[in-house]
């Protein structure tokens, strides 16, 4: 179920980081409505990385095209996990800076949470 990181996904990761940076700036300006629109629309620049910071998945919801590999990375001092609420994927414990990757092939909604800290929730929306 876990996929090996390809060079292509590295490129995606960097463009995702760039978008996250832009989104962050927009958030600071208080343009929250625009931020939501930016996250919801999949495009070549859509984020494919979910960060874990301060016991939260960021962004909490991302939309990707089918076939996209999503990467979660834990920036906290405490381990976390990424568990599909419906049992479709499940990471091992991720220590600080550990990553988990999963490629979404089927369109649909994939809610997930941390099984250690279940208040932490998020969702991947996969479009055809």
């Amino acid at each position, binding site marked *: 179920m876990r996929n090996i990181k390809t060079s292509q996904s590295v490129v995606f990761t960097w463009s995702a980081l760039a978008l996250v940076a832009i989104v962050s700036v927009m958030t600071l300006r208080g343009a929250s409505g625009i931020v939501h629109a930016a996250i919801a629309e999949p495009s070549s620049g859509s984020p494919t990385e979910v960060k874990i910071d*301060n*016991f939260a998945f960021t962004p909490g919801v991302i939309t990707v095209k089918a076939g996209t590999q999503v990467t979660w990375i834990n920036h906290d001092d405490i381990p976390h996990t990424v*568990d599909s609420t419906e049992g479709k994927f499940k990471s091992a*414990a991720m220590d600080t800076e550990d990553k988990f990757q999963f490629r979404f092939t089927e369109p649909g909604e994939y809610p997930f949470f941390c099984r250690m800290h*279940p208040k932490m929730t998020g969702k991947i929306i996969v479009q055809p």
Partner: protein
Amino acid sequence: MANKTQDLIDQNLQDLNDDGVDRRGFLKCMAWAGTGLVWTLNGGIPVSRAFAKTIGKGGSKGSDFSFVQISDSHIGFNKPANPDVTATLQVAIDRINAMPHKPDFIIHTGDLSQLSKPSEFDTLDQALKGVTAKQVYFVPGEHDMLTDNGEQYLQRYGKGTKGSGWYSFDQKGVHFVGLVNVVNLKAGGLGSLGHEQLEWLEDDLKAHSASTPIVMFAHIPLWTIYPDWGWGTDDSEQALSYVKRFGSVTVLNGHIHQVMQKVEGKLSFHTAMSTAFPQPAPGTAPSAGPMKVPAEQLQKVLGITDVNYLVSGKSLAIVDSPLEGSSASNKTGG
């Protein structure tokens, strides 16, 4: 800003504190980190005291027996908040061994390890071999059940337990119940005991008369402290409904790395300090992550804030007993 934060904390604590204890005084006593608590049983009423300084003044003299609660060792954690958690666990063990009256046993309320690694459990076992108490009882924290559905933990610490590691035992007329609320957690939820364990608990308690003192222990608090940070247990109300008929019930938890306590009728709730690193008071930080203090302060912090918990009518008596530096401040609830 500081006042705002203080107000927020006061507000958060308001519901927790219908017991006559001044809220600011209570907050002052929410210790960051420490080494453990000694519990002595006098006439079936558990009384806790930090074991560092006050134990000499009367200690467990005249008590039926005593035990020590330690929690949240997080062996394997090596981040700036405490790069050597094995050393601070050893400090706790040294303190226990230096007590004038040897505790009958130790209860560890979970998060023995950081990542459920065999090497982490090995290190904990090795350290606890040096403790003079006859026995150590465990319940798992969420950090201990990370691999193979908790097999590693259950093989080492769960022999003779039920389900994911729950059990009960009796000591000189007191009934102890160890519960597990860290597995099969639901997205968006808090800690969870689950249907099977609750049924077992109801059945287990039926055999005991209402005059039997009950001590329940579990990792995540069995009372709602701060749901935003997951500091509570979804189905704890049901568990507590089974103990309502008993005359003395003490609930011991870990997980939040600080002392908080509450008395509700015949129920006394208490959370223990960690032997590894402090966590922030509810709502005072962006998250519940480890609280970093300067290295030279950590050792001080581990020893400085001791809390005595005395049942006195309906109220608490809390004593701040720093190991070094400024003198102790007393706060007694009316």
